[in-house]
């Protein structure tokens, strides 16, 4: 093919076309939600502010990009190497007849791979790990923060000391020590996963037990579900021993996942503890105590639902923060294989070449920024809406 390098106008037009499944999904989801926004609670209220819509748009854009990544990305992100495309400028035509697409829209990287495809594929790792790790951190933080705030005394002193211990640790140093190939040879990541992943199961057991202890018929079904489902996920995620072979994490990902949960939990713990200290002075908590409810019922069914507003806002912010953290890990090449299309890693690869070509680092950098920006805008809109109530 003897095509010329195309200009930025047609680059963006072509990229726009390649993203068609994302636009379709966005149009459906956002259109339906907008029409039904009055009946969707807090989520629907996001559509009341422009910034909220923009934030949601950016977040959903990347969510759908990650989901449809294989359809959107024209080239293979790891193996799609084409001769003559090394450090190619954006819009360079591919001089190969077998190429699945005519152009490297956002140029080629140092190893002659398509920057556009790598950006699209890179969204998958981030969006798979960041929300899941943050939710795990929330479970851990909530399970430990509620009793610390509610009981106070020695429980509180010990747990707060432990949380402060982790918080005093410089994050980057912790990652350098915890996310290394060396540590994967030791049982430390698995041991940490075994402890941290057990906490969500404990959380759900307590959650149902505290409410339905007097109704064994309902309780047994719920507990059985929690233990079977939780045990299945637990064996798969923590020990890679899923009997069905569906759920599993390679040691690399497990290592990152556990470390991210570990550094995020203490902050969540502090927030939950503070909220609990505040809410436990309310009248409805006193009323529940007078009724003779047990402490865990009060914590999980009286305090937690009333703390959900600030927690949802923080969840949103924290997913963004975790995304930044994952980028930092990639930037230092920790816990990612050198070829993976991870954004942080690509930024680091690209920045070494900034003198000659700018786009290699700029594309993943802008991608990461827009995702975090979307999450922050969404959190801000949620905060404003929940303050209005």
């Amino acid at each position, binding site marked *: 093919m003897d095509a010329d390098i195309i200009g930025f106008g047609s680059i963006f037009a072509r990229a726009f076309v390649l993203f068609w499944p994302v636009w379709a999904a966005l149009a459906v989801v956002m259109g339906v939600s907008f029409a039904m926004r009055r009946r969707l609670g807090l989520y629907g209220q996001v559509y009341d502010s422009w910034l909220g819509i923009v934030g949601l748009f950016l977040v959903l854009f990347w969510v759908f990009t990650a989901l449809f990544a294989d359809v959107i990305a024209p080239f293979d992100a790891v193996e799609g190497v084409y001769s003559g495309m090394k450090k190619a400028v954006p819009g360079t035509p591919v001089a190969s007849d077998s190429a699945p697409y005519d152009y490297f829209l956002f140029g080629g990287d140092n190893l002659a791979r398509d920057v556009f495809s790598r950006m699209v594929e890179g969204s998958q790792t981030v969006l798979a790990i960041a929300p899941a790790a943050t939710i795990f951190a929330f479970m851990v933080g909530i399970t430990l923060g509620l009793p610390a705030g509610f009981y106070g005394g020695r429980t509180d002193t010990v747990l707060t000391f432990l949380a402060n211990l982790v918080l005093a640790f*410089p994050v980057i*140093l912790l990652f350098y020590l915890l996310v290394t190939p060396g540590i994967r040879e*030791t049982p430390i990541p698995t041991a940490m996963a075994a402890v941290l992943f057990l906490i969500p199961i404990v959380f759900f057991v307590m959650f149902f037990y505290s409410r339905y202890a007097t109704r064994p018929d309902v309780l047994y079904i719920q507990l059985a579900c929690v233990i079977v489902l939780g045990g299945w996920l637990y064996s798969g995620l923590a020990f890679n021993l899923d009997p069905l072979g569906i759920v599993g994490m390679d040691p690399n990902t497990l290592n990152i996942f556990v470390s991210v949960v570990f550094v995020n939990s203490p902050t969540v713990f502090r927030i939950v503890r503070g909220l609990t200290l505040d809410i436990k002075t309310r009248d409805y908590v006193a009323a529940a105590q007078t009724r003779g409810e047990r402490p865990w019922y009060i914590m999980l069914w009286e305090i937690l639902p009333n703390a959900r507003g600030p927690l949802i806002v923080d969840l949103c912010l924290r997913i*963004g923060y975790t995304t930044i953290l994952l980028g*930092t890990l990639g930037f230092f090449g920790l816990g990612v294989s050198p070829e993976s299309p991870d954004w942080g890693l690509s930024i680091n690869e*690209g*920045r070494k070449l900034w003198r000659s070509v*700018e786009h290699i680092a700029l594309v993943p950098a802008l991608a*990461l920024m827009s995702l975090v920006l979307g999450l*922050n805008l969404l959190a801000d809109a949620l905060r404003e809406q929940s303050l209005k109530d």
Partner: protein
Amino acid sequence: MLSFILRRLGVMILTMLVLTAVVFFLSNLEPNLRKLALSDGNMRMTDAQIEQWLDNRGYNRPFVVRYADWLGGVVQGDLGFSTRFKKPVLELLGERLAATGALMFWVMITMVPLALLIGVLAGMREGTGTDRSLSVLSIGSTATPEYVSGIIFTVIFASLFGEWFGKEWALNGSAASATGSKGITFNNFALPVMTMAFYGMGYIARMTRASMAEVMTAQYIRTARLKGVSFRNIVVKHALRNALIAPFTVIMLQFPWLLTGVVIVESMFNYKGFGLALVQAAENNDIDLLMACSLASVAVVLITQLISDIGYVYLNPRIRVK
């Protein structure tokens, strides 16, 4: 107050002991020691030779003995010897901390006033156009970690400026010369400072804004307004002092957070400071240097926490220490 500070100091020392023990334990895991032996000794050593090498240098003694040994050295002011730089750690750390201190000084001097200004301007008239646009700016800045803003700023100010206005207008994309004979100049230091200041700025600005907006709804502001005090005087003389209590704590607590930024920015712009030393120590498993780095960074975190607590009590007479 004195017993409060003493108790805090006790907790601090305990925290430092536990954390350094953790770092010591992790950096002395067997795979890490093997890596050290291979990188510092001979790359082609056999397993038996590695054992021999580690034995000769005392790396195979029991963990507790070695940690006590290290601790004894620290108490006497001896931080050990860096295997990566072939230098006493104390000397190296002094140089590196001084270099990072200079970076932090410039970051703080640009970031804090700018952030406070943005926060106050946005918070003094809540809900106006100024407020909205400044808030979006600060949200945008918190969404831009150093490794993103560093790239963007480098592309704009180092490459594009060079293309548009000629080489003399472009900033230097590397700060390596700042620790050399040339010293710190605007040209080689503007980019790292800008990059670091931008990420931290948004957070402080948002805290200031929230605190300012809250103060502006207080009763005494309304009283001042009804007395006929001008808006400018209300903001400058009445609101500002109370509104700056919360950001003060935030600024102090920014220090540990800035450490990650220091590490990123220093490796990005190749500035030979503390952050780069930490990266190099971790990558080569330079145990003594790594221990000294963690000691220094944990100390900074804990001391700033203490200062922020004491300062908070001092600034806000309503809080009394139990």
